[in-house]
């Protein structure tokens, strides 16, 4: 019912091309997250699917039906806006009821549906209040209830949590995941926050500049980035990516063909205080500690290589290497199975001896 298929969708404003021939299938019942830097076209895609924005070319199918020319309200979807877009003149009840009234659902049925959804999102006590008297979290719940009450096959969410404070955001993240499991509808969620994307999405679609850079599960997009953009956008701090030419002490053999960049996650580097790390197959580097951040369970060091190149290294707190001071000379060792290679087109290439092995 709720499968969304985009075929060669284009969108441009005047000369400015926002989306270039984009094709994407969003599976029925999935929690798909569109993530990317601002201006990458993710919100535009959402609005094209909703029918609020006209595409320049291509086709959009919702539940196998081409929705060309179909009004937004008739597409069997509901949308939750970043700023909630609640009707300020209406009470919570009227806000939720408006969409039902418009499709002429009888009063009794409306009341039953409103009771049901407000029970789920915990708004029963606020039904007769106007939105301006609600907190940010409560407003977001009204927006959710307004979407849910229509029982759509598809929920579109445009950065719905970005106006909330960090704690509330985390709580609502969990509630959204629960809600998705409970409703079984397709969720398409747009965000620029990679943490949100990683924690919520059953599938992540990473976009940049109107194109899809990678489409994968959270696990795979983190561990097997398809390109440099992917490796740098996902993960905090991002993957360390070095040019092959910058490395004098490069060890592992054999190299896959056409390698130009070498990357590794900050937590995969092992620190050895006696400069040279352990031997074995991998990458050894010499570095100086230039900064230390306490993240709670982990410590984030920023280190500098001999060629002044800065890297991030993450280690667990309460180990002997968690108290390194500024200026300490250290050795870094990254095992070759944690090293990711990219060619000069910034695409990932796999080392011949470990091709397709996904064991980390």
């Amino acid at each position, binding site marked *: 019912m709720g499968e969304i298929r985009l075929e060669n969708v284009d969108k441009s404003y005047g000369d400015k091309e926002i989306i270039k021939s984009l094709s994407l299938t969003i599976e029925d019942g999935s929690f798909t997250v569109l993530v990317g830097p601002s201006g990458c076209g993710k919100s535009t895609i959402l609005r094209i699917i909703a029918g609020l924005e006209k595409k320049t070319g291509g086709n959009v199918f919702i539940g196998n039906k081409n929705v060309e020319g179909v009004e*937004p309200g008739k597409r069997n979807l509901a*949308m939750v*806006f970043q700023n909630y877009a609640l*009707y300020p*003149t209406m009470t919570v009840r009227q806000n939720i009821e408006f*969409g039902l009234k418009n499709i002429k659902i009888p009063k009794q049925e409306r009341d039953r549906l409103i009771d049901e959804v407000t029970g789920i999102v915990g708004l029963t006590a606020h039904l007769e209040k106007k939105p301006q008297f609600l907190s940010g979290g409560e407003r977001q719940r009204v927006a959710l209830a307004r979407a849910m009450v229509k029982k759509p096959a598809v929920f579109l969410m445009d950065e719905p949590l970005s106006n909330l404070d960090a704690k509330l955001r985390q709580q609502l993240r969990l509630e959204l995941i629960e809600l998705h499991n409970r409703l079984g509808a397709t969720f398409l969620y747009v965000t620029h926050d990679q943490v949100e994307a990683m924690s919520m999405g059953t599938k992540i679609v990473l976009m940049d500049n109107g194109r899809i850079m990678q489409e994968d599960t959270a696990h795979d997009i983190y561990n097997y980035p398809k390109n440099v953009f992917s490796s740098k956008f996902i993960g905090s701090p991002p993957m360390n990516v070095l040019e092959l030419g910058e490395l004098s002490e490069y060890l592992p053999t054999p190299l896959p063909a056409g390698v130009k960049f070498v990357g590794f996650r900050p937590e995969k580097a092992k620190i050895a205080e006696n400069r040279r790390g352990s031997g074995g197959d991998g990458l050894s580097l010499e570095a100086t500690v230039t900064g230390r951040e306490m993240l709670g369970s982990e410590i984030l060091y920023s280190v500098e290589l001999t060629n002044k190149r800065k890297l991030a290294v993450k280690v667990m707190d309460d180990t002997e290497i968690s108290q390194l001071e500024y200026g300490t000379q250290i050795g870094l060792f990254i095992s070759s199975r944690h090293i990711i290679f990219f060619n000069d087109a910034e695409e990932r290439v796999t080392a011949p001896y470990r091709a397709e092995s996904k064991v980390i």
Partner: protein
Amino acid sequence: MERSVRLKPRNGERTGWSMARPYILVLPAIAILAVFYIYPIFYNVYLSFHSWNMRGSMKFIGLQNYLELFKSADFRQIIMNTLVYMLMNVSLTVVLAIALAMFLRKSTLISRFIQTLSFTPNIISLVSISMIWSWLMTADESGLFNYVLSFLGLGPFGWLSDKHLALFSLVLVAIWKSVGLNALIITSSLGSIPDYLYEAARLDNASKSATFFSITLKMISPTLFFLILMNIISSFEVFETINVMTQGGPDNATNTLVFSIYKQGFEYYRIGYASAMAVILMIMIGLITVFYFKALEKNVHYR
């Protein structure tokens, strides 16, 4: 602790200058209010109990002026004229202004041109407007309206000489003058309605009329509330058009309170009688305003 102590004036200063200062500061405003508003109101009420021709001595006659007014059929007609004029003027001006504003809200070249055009009457003096419209509405075919209508085989109409039409003709002039300004104010209010509300409404399957009544109209309700009140008050104060175009005629059909007060007071020098009418006008405006606030304020959504 220390901070709150410092904010309070010390006890020794609570006399003299610091006590008097706020009253001295508001004195100029209060003085103007007292001399030009409060005193005249009371003096007007005082005058309404007297008989006076502005020259001779004043004679106290009690409620005589009021009794005469309530017995007069002309006065009942004047009150009716005033109310009918007010209702026609307010409803037509506001409805037309909303329609015009809805049309003008898209900022195209044409809409900006029309906006300027519709606003222009506001900068012309009402007396000049009245002269022009007197000619437009001349009863025979030398008036432009009747001349144009004659090609359609209609008329001629006695725009200002037909007692069933004259009051409406005056309303027409008032609308022509004020609809542009009203539309301008409504347009700016429409412009402050965020687009996402309309997007949400589209997703909610709202029809055009549901969108208009449930979103647009409600969002501009504070502006409408204010405009209607302003229009009610200005309708009660109508004078120039009547004075230039009809002199209250034909057969008292366009005689309104303010015009009649002027006539009685400054042409017939019946100051007491005119003052009694002014008191009634004041009470009417007061009552209508209070009623208006009570009836409509709960429907207004302030952001």
